[in-house]
């Protein structure tokens, strides 16, 4: 195996290897869709964030418009503070509602933004005032049982 | 000014078991010197000390004018560039051709234009008679040819001191004769000094100028070939004449024969 053949094969190997990496990044991963250059940060408080994780998506109308950056606990109001980085290309009114929703029935949780009608937009560092916490299964069940019990009492009246 | 001076050198790989005991040697420039003895007498170890691979535990080894213990790595490598060594079975680089093997020292230490390098390699191969084999790989060579290529490689940089570690091992009579004659002619051609470690007595005595005889880590006899051939020293006598019994006994230590056969 002389030198030029070795160089040729190594060149092919390295090229194909990098091509595989690029294939993985573009076709398999989400590099093409969302890039993190221009974002602005807003935060929101929730009574319960459920299973929301950092780096989880922030969606509006089902489209990813940002990522959860940070989740902290406020020891004064005993609520969770979620910081989000939103794509600078998307502006939301100040009265936007942030809800914690689930993908499908058993999927991962994400922050859903429903735009309000206010003319003034959210700026970097603003707080989203209207929030709805995650649905916690135990609360749901106890509420269901409570309703059932109330229903059972009513005919007796 | 001797090329190699060994003064009162003692050494052991394991400090508790010395391999060399108080050796004294002086090798004159231009001479072909033989170091002979039984296997395990310490002659290869002595060669390694001359090479600088090991430092003596006691005494001093002076090679090419400098004590080996005073050399740092750079100085050691600089000294080795003026030496050449032929290993027992050649130690050719198996992934390179004959040409590339001989060119190796030139490529590593000099930056020569390709045509000059080519001429030098051909020169060395011509000296050992293998110019036509330049394109072969070491696996395609016979033992004798491999040894000769290794010899060409060891003289690639025109060394002042050439070391031979058992150069005649396993050679057929023709290759044997070739190597013997090459050692002498190259030594004189290059104006170098050669040290041959061997136990092939008869042939070596024909080519060397001076001999050191070692046994048990000591030099027990030294002199010119004729002196050695007629030496009264019993071990030298047994060795030179190949007698089966003498100071080196035929029988390994064992209990009485009759007792072993359960007779007495």
């Amino acid at each position, binding site marked *: 195996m002389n030198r030029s053949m070795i160089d040729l094969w190594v060149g092919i190997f390295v090229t194909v*290897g990098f091509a595989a990496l690029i294939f993985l990044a573009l076709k398999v991963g989400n590099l093409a869709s969302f890039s993190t250059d221009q974002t602005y940060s807003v935060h929101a408080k929730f009574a319960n964030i459920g299973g929301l994780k950092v780096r989880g998506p922030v969606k509006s109308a089902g489209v990813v418009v940002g990522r959860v950056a940070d989740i902290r606990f406020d020891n004064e109001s005993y609520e969770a503070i979620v910081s989000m980085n939103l794509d600078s290309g998307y502006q939301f009114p100040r009265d936007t509602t942030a809800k914690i929703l689930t993908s499908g029935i058993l999927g991962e949780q994400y922050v859903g933004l429903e735009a309000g009608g206010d003319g003034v937009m959210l700026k970097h560092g603003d707080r989203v005032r209207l929030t709805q916490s995650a649905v916690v299964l135990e609360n749901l069940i106890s509420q269901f049982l409570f309703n059932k019990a109330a229903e059972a009492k009513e005919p007796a009246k | 000014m001797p090329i190699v001076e060994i003064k009162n050198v003692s050494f052991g790989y394991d400090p508790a078991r010395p391999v060399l005991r108080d050796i004294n040697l002086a090798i004159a420039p231009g001479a072909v010197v033989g170091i002979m003895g039984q296997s395990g007498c310490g002659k290869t170890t002595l060669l390694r000390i001359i090479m600088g691979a090991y430092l003596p535990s006691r005494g001093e080894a002076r090679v090419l004018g400098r004590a080996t213990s005073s050399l740092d790595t750079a100085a050691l490598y600089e000294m080795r560039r003026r030496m050449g060594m032929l290993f027992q079975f050649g130690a050719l680089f198996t992934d390179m051709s004959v040409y590339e093997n001989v060119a190796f020292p030139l490529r590593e230490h000099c930056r020569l234009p390709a045509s000059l390098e080519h001429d030098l390699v051909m020169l060395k191969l011509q000296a050992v008679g293998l110019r036509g084999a330049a394109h072969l790989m070491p696996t395609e060579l016979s033992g004798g040819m491999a040894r000769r290529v290794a010899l060409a*490689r060891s003289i690639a940089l025109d060394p002042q001191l050439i070391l031979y570690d058992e150069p005649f091992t396993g050679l057929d009579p023709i290759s044997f004769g070739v190597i013997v004659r090459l050692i002498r002619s190259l030594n004189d051609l290059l104006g170098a000094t050669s040290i041959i470690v061997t136990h092939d007595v008869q042939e070596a005595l024909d080519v060397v100028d001076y001999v050191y005889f070692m046994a048990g880590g000591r030099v027990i006899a030294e002199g010119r070939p004729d002196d050695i051939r007629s030496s009264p020293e019993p071990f030298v006598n047994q060795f030179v004449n190949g007698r089966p019994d003498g100071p080196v006994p035929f029988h390994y230590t064992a209990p009485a024969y009759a007792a072993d056969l359960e007779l007495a």
Partner: protein
Amino acid sequence: MEFAGFRSRLERLGGTVTSQVWRIGFASRFLVYLVLHSGTALRRFRLTVAQVYFAGVLSLVIILVSGLFVGMVLALQGYETLQRFGASESLGVLVALSLVRELGPVVAGLLFASRAGSAITAEIGLMKATEQISAMEMMAVDPIARVVAPRFWGGVISMPLLAALFSAAGIFGGYLVGVQLIGVDAGAFWSQMQAAVDVRNDILNGVIKSLVFGIAVTWISVFEGYDAIPTAEGVSRATTRTVVTSSLAILALDFVLTALMFTGGNH
């Protein structure tokens, strides 16, 4: 009587442990020396390129074929389980994440250790046994810079590329079985995969893993070769040790790296 035997066994065990610890120290110094003397390997890049050929290119066939088969099996097994939960459209996600995060770096690493790692150990060990290393030293050429360093960098360069190729081949195999054979919707296969696989968290972490494995495996290979007893038996033992130690190192490092990189939570 029994106690004396037990005690001597304990002493031997202690001796083995201390000698292993000593060996790790020696190997670490070897690595540092090797990296510091990598000038020749980098300046005369031809030497390293030749080693990328021997370590990387010659491993291509086994990596691609194994990757393909692993991907196909993942798709088969994955479909079996996923369709029980009505989640068969997530097959692409399963195959891609398994490969990119874990199987790509780990299995490619194990294959690399057995094919290229053992070859490197055997080669260096044989050079030592046939006195080629001593001959080089005698010609005032540092064998670690000339022989060992190019092999080290050749392996480190090859490993991440081989892991990426393994994952790519596996995803293709998963596509072949999942979409072509079983009939999962192609659109769902790719789109769900793209949504779930994150470049920074999954792919980059996979690349980092394969880089770490490459360093570990190649380090072990060159060290075992250089430290081998220069006999036929010594070289064969060193080759076996390379494969065993490399495999264990890959699995242990995989655990450590996975714990660092992939454990979820609100951190």
